[in-house]
């Protein structure tokens, strides 16, 4: 525990960066993911194809490759730090999974909801925004929560590109103190502070949903 005492500010700085990257990526991927989910349920064949390709590509390649692409290739054209490159990659990667969750949510809502809204004079986007999406999100909450947990865990990818996050700082502390074991236990505890309560809350929500069904 002297190790925790000694390096507390370093761990805290890492924790802050992890939290910040996760929050940026959460907001970004919710917007992007919802957008691509809607594209996949429109009647336009082109929009559906684009939405589908986007989701399949980002779901099926490693996050590390996306991160390296932004850090090594894109950053040559547009200057950005490792933190920015990693957060952008996290956003794109997670948005593909969120698109899947939201799409499943939309499909679980009766078609009559959309038809009724359209018959009452709302256009497609209005009906989506006011009638369908609010219901779809309620259904999708447990799966979105799981995606957020994955996002927090995946933010450790920042360590590969000098992103100053928890994992990165942990590696520094480990190299400095030579006590790798204690360091990684502390790093793990910091991650669990975010992910474990979320995970139990989602299990509780899923239980509630099952009871209703």
């Amino acid at each position, binding site marked *: 525990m002297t190790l925790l005492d000694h390096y507390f500010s370093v761990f805290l700085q890492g924790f802050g960066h992890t939290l910040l990257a996760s929050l940026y990526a959460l907001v970004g991927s919710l917007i992007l993911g919802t957008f691509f989910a809607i594209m996949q349920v429109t009647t336009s064949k082109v929009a559906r194809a684009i939405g589908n390709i986007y989701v*399949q590509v980002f779901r099926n390649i490693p996050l590390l*490759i996306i991160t390296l692409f932004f850090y090594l290739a894109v950053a040559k054209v547009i200057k950005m730090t490792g933190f920015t490159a990693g957060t952008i990659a996290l956003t794109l990667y997670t948005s593909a999974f969120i698109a899947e969750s939201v799409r499943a949510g939309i499909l679980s809502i009766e078609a009559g909801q959309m038809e009724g809204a359209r018959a009452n004079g709302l256009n497609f986007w209005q009906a989506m925004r006011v009638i369908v999406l609010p219901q779809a999100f309620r259904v999708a909450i447990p799966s979105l929560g799981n995606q957020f947990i994955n996002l927090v865990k995946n933010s*450790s990818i920042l360590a590969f590109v000098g992103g100053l996050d928890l994992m990165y700082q*942990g590696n520094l502390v480990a190299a400095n103190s030579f*006590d790798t074991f204690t*360091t*990684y236990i502390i790093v793990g505890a910091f991650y*669990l502070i975010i992910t*474990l309560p979320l*995970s139990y809350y989602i299990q509780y929500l899923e239980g509630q949903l099952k009871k209703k069904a």
Partner: protein
Amino acid sequence: MSEFFDAFTGANLGYLMDGLGITVGVSVISVVLSLIIGSIIGIILFEKLPYFSSLVGTLNNIVRNLPLLLIIFFTYFALPQFGVHLPIFWATVVAMTGFQSAMLAEIVRGGLEAVDRGQFEGARANGLSNMQTMIHIVLPQAYKKMIPPIISQLISLVKDTSLASGIVLAELTYRGQIVYAQNSNYIVPVLLFMTIVYFLLNYGLSLIAKWFDRRLA
């Protein structure tokens, strides 16, 4: 444009494809091992044994909620502090198996809960023991429903193997980094090449999962 393909000399291409072999090797060994361990943990969670199941469940939740990268680093860098020295390949397999077992345990538990109670009661009424009921009646039905989620775990394994480049396992991503270290003009072509290879492999797997999904529905 011809410059674009300069990166793909025969030597480089062979070197990268050997890396793909290691990626697939780690993934397949890990998924088989974690299927066995995950099933055992899943059954323990499902059986709700007093104290023991909730203890295992808590440990399982802790492992599930840690970043895999941390588990890989822990296995390779921290375990030697206790005299456990694993070669890079096996350190990766152990870390991946530990993490995936926790994931699969939840899938197995869910699969078991989806099997109708009548199946247990019927088998028990016909004189099978608890163990026999599990092995001959319940697990085969549960596994059938679990094939698609198990394949998606295999997809995440293939993707996550790239994290082992952090401990210098010579799999595809690490070898890509070696190749573009020769010449910075290689960065984009090599990253694109790796994207295509990973995509084809994983998209193929996801199509198989979809096929099972449709057949089992």
